[in-house]
């Protein structure tokens, strides 16, 4: 991760701030920084989203492809996560420098999507054992301002919401081969059900207290953090996975309380995200042409 | 090994020389080094030397699957290998910047220009096609690898024949050359690369740069061009910039050069074919006789006055004719040193074999006039016939000089001394003398 050099005095300042429940940027321990979200900004992709969480900038593009289901899961589609840490974020990512971090995030993300109740791969199946959709979720990290896990998962969820999978109108069986015909109308498409899609929340332990949405500086002060994957179903939150990172350790009680904190934060975050996505879609009409701001704003 | 850095004075010397329209090896600005092409005993192997730069090319083929997007076309791969054999600072198996660049330029010249008829390489669509692979090994790096490599690749491709096949249903039978004659590759056109290096804020371009010229130049231009004056690839880049005028001038010169080179390639191919049909021996044996020096560029003297010969005064001539055995040479060479210097400084008696241009020391008042003559030469150099004559003449001169080198080792050693002193210490020249002899 981008290494920011902090002096001991700065670290102490941040530490004391967190203790007082009054962080450097004025937030409490449970506050998120402001976010900007825009969907559908990459025209070559079936779905895309850009999320900016303060300084963290994530661009997600989703491409669809027809594939053959794996023989172990003949009735399931496939989803693949690929994270690229652009050197734009920091020169350390040049060449293969960002691969380790990218691997960590994509593994965590893939684990949280593994549960059938969180993300139903069966919906991506076209003909069991013959044809299925494969989703390539490609994530580009353009700037690192801390809290990558949360930002990535939110952006992916938004991009999945935006994804349009062409409708299969007919399937012809010709001996062993299957001929699919896809709808020509770009507006005639399937959407992905995103309500249950999990999001990740990082809870960062700074000193003796836990905070959500750590900035890059705060991440430097923390010895350990825990990432919880949370999926919403029937107005209840379910944990899909827990990932710990950092060198430090958690006391059992702290871990419990931080998971608790993560869950409640995720609930709120998810709610807000859905509202934002609905708003965005309403604003531009369901399939209406809209002005893309992208990076111009 | 790290590349030996080029010192500022070496660089300045080259730049200054070019400003005076001189080059270290005595070529004119527009002149190319002699190009020699040899073919191996096998189909598709060619050995090309451009001056001292050598490239060995080998084409091979195998049957394989075509790309899904182009199911009825064969594939062509070009791969250039820069090994420590060419120059010590090249690392084997590492993709250096230069390798990438040469590879891409060749790919653009041969693949993107569709010079090879890939459709004729199709055996059965979507299933089996011929995959051609051109492997280029740079044997010696003395500048302008790209030109040499492009000629080698083209020669090898034009020379190559792939075995004939018969398809019966699912079965594919590959015939040996004894059963059925192998089939040559169809080439739509013959592109070669021609390089220039620019100096003096992009106002002067010199053809066929050597290593030291490449390294002290400001920018370089590579034209991939065929004999029909069609550009196939163009690459210009460096630190300083060229006006579009120079570029256009160079491009038309490059076209003329390309035509010559292609003619030479065709002639070489014809000679090879003749030799084969007449059952004469073919192969690389001929190369062995070609040249003697084969070591690394930097360690050897890069300054050579090939086309200049001395008018020696009598004393000197006697001395050189007296010298018979190799062991004496070093001592005698040292003896003759003051003489040679005197000749050079006072009378400037270096005569060019080629166009009777007199070479005069820098401070002489004649130098302006001299430059003028060179310029005239440059302009007329654009025409085909002139260049051809020049080329032939050059070869004659080169042969003559090679002969002279053997017969008059001392005069050569002496002739280098005065000019060379400007940049080097004298120990190198002794090395050169002995090497020429060896």
């Amino acid at each position: 991760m981008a290494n920011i050099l902090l002096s001991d005095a700065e670290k102490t300042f941040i530490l004391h701030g967190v203790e007082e429940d009054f962080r450097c940027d004025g937030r409490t321990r449970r506050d998120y920084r402001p976010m900007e979200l825009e969907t559908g900004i990459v025209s070559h992709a079936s779905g895309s989203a850009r999320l900016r969480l303060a300084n963290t900038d994530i661009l997600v593009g989703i491409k669809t492809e027809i594939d053959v289901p794996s023989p172990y899961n003949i009735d399931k589609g496939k989803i693949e996560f690929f994270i690229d840490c652009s050197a734009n974020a920091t020169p350390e990512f040049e060449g293969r420098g960002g691969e380790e971090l990218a691997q960590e995030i994509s593994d965590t993300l893939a684990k949280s999507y593994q549960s059938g109740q969180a993300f139903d791969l069966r919906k991506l199946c076209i003909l069991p054992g013959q044809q299925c959709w494969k989703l390539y979720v490609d994530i580009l990290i353009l700037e690192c301002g801390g809290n990558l896990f949360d930002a990535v998962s939110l952006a992916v969820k938004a991009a999945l919401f935006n994804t349009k999978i062409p409708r299969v109108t007919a399937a012809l069986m010709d001996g062993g081969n299957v001929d699919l015909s896809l709808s020509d109308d770009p507006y005639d498409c399937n959407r992905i059900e995103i309500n249950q899609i999990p999001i990740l929340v990082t809870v960062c332990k700074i000193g003796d207290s836990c905070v959500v949405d750590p900035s890059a500086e705060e991440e430097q002060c923390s010895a350990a953090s825990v990432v919880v994957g949370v999926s919403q179903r029937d107005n209840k939150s379910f944990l899909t996975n827990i990932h710990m990172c950092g060198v430090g350790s958690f006391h059992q009680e702290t871990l419990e309380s931080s998971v608790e904190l993560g869950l409640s934060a995720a609930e709120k975050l998810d709610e807000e995200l859905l509202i934002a996505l609905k708003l965005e879609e309403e604003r531009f009409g369901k399939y209406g042409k809209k002005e893309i701001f992208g990076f111009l704003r | 090994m790290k590349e030996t850095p080029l010192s500022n004075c070496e660089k300045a010397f080259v730049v200054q020389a070019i400003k005076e329209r001189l080059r270290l090896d005595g070529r004119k600005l527009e002149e190319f080094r002699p190009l020699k092409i040899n073919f191996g005993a096998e189909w598709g192997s060619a050995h090309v030397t451009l001056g001292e730069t050598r490239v060995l090319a080998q084409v091979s083929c195998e049957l394989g699957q075509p790309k899904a997007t182009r199911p009825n076309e064969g594939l062509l791969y070009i791969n250039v290998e820069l090994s420590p054999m060419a120059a010590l600072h090249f690392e084997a198996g590492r993709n250096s910047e230069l390798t990438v660049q040469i590879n891409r330029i060749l790919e653009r010249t041969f693949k993107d220009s569709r010079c090879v008829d890939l459709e004729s390489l199709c055996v059965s669509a979507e299933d089996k096609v011929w995959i051609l692979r051109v492997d280029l090994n740079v044997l010696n790096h003395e500048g302008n690898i790209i030109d040499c490599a492009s000629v080698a690749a083209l020669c090898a491709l034009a020379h190559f024949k792939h075995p004939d096949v018969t398809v019966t249903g699912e079965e594919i039978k590959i015939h040996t050359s004894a059963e059925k004659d192998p089939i040559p590759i169809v080439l739509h056109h013959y592109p070669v690369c021609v390089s220039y290096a620019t100096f003096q804020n992009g106002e002067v371009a010199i053809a066929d740069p050597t290593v030291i010229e490449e390294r002290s130049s400001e920018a370089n231009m590579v034209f991939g061009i065929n004999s029909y004056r069609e550009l196939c690839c163009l690459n210009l880049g460096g630190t300083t910039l060229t006006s579009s005028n120079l570029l256009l001038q160079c491009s038309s010169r490059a076209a003329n050069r390309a035509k010559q080179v292609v003619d030479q390639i065709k002639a070489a191919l014809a000679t090879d074919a003749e030799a084969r049909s007449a059952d004469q021996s073919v192969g690389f044996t001929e190369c062995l006789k070609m040249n003697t020096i084969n070591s690394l560029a930097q360690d050897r003297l890069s300054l050579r006055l090939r086309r200049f010969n001395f008018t020696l005064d009598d004393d000197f001539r006697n001395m050189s004719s007296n010298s018979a055995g190799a062991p004496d040479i070093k001592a005698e060479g040292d003896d003759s040193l003051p003489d040679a210097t005197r000749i050079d400084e006072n009378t400037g008696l270096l005569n060019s074999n080629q166009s009777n241009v007199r070479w005069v020391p820098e401070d002489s008042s004649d130098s302006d006039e001299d430059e003028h003559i060179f310029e005239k030469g440059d302009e007329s150099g654009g025409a085909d016939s002139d260049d051809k004559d020049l080329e032939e003449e050059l070869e004659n001169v080169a042969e003559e000089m090679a002969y002279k080198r053997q017969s008059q080792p001392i005069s050569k050693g002496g002739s280098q001394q005065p000019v060379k002193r400007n940049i080097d210490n004298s120990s190198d020249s002794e090395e050169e003398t002995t090497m020429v002899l060896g």
Partner: protein
Amino acid sequence: MANQDLLSDQGLRLDGRRAHELRRIRCKLGVFSQPDGSAYLEQGNTKVLAAVYGPHQAPGKKSNHSEVIVNCQYSMAVFSTGERKNRPRGDRKSQEMTIHLQQTLRAAIKTELYPRSQIDVFIEVLQADGGNYCASVNAATLALIDAGICLKEYVCACTASLANGNVPLMDVSHLEEVSGGATLSVASLPSSNKIAFMEMSQRFHLDHLPKVLDHALQGCQQIMSILDKAVREHLALVGSASDWGNIAK
């Protein structure tokens, strides 16, 4: 030949432009806060982000005592093309592009001003629709300006091609690149009318070169005026916010 269709009888191109028209260029300086300089540039549907770090101390082994090292990386988002790319960088084409960018930018930067230093220029292509090299160069120029690095002048790049065998086209899109003939990419310093870099592939008769080159250079001129306007607007915005640095007035 597919070449014939590039220009209709009315003189319109596939996307409705005329032969000598550029695609719409929109750009913004300073999109990111972490890099020392950054820029975003859209040329039609080609979208490029550039970030500049430096000048900073060069690592020991690379350090050059007389001039700055320009270090580039060109990478394309895997979703940037019609077909998904397997990896964002490291293939031959992007390596070549990296080298080309490096050459171009070195020609524009006043390298002698920053001895023993290094400037990193990172290019990220978000969407590729022809003229990637040109958009990258233009974006890099803006990012360098945003980073406050001394340039000799603007360096702009533009493509040109030939339609119907004799009409030069300016600023070629991907569709035209694929269906048409050769494409010439030129990076120039338009103020002094010098060429910093030039690249071309596919077949193309030499007689057409002056014409096409001329068009590409004209394109560079036009792009320069667009970039210049963007820089001035950006500076006005930044400058007025700080009252042109006259805080202690």
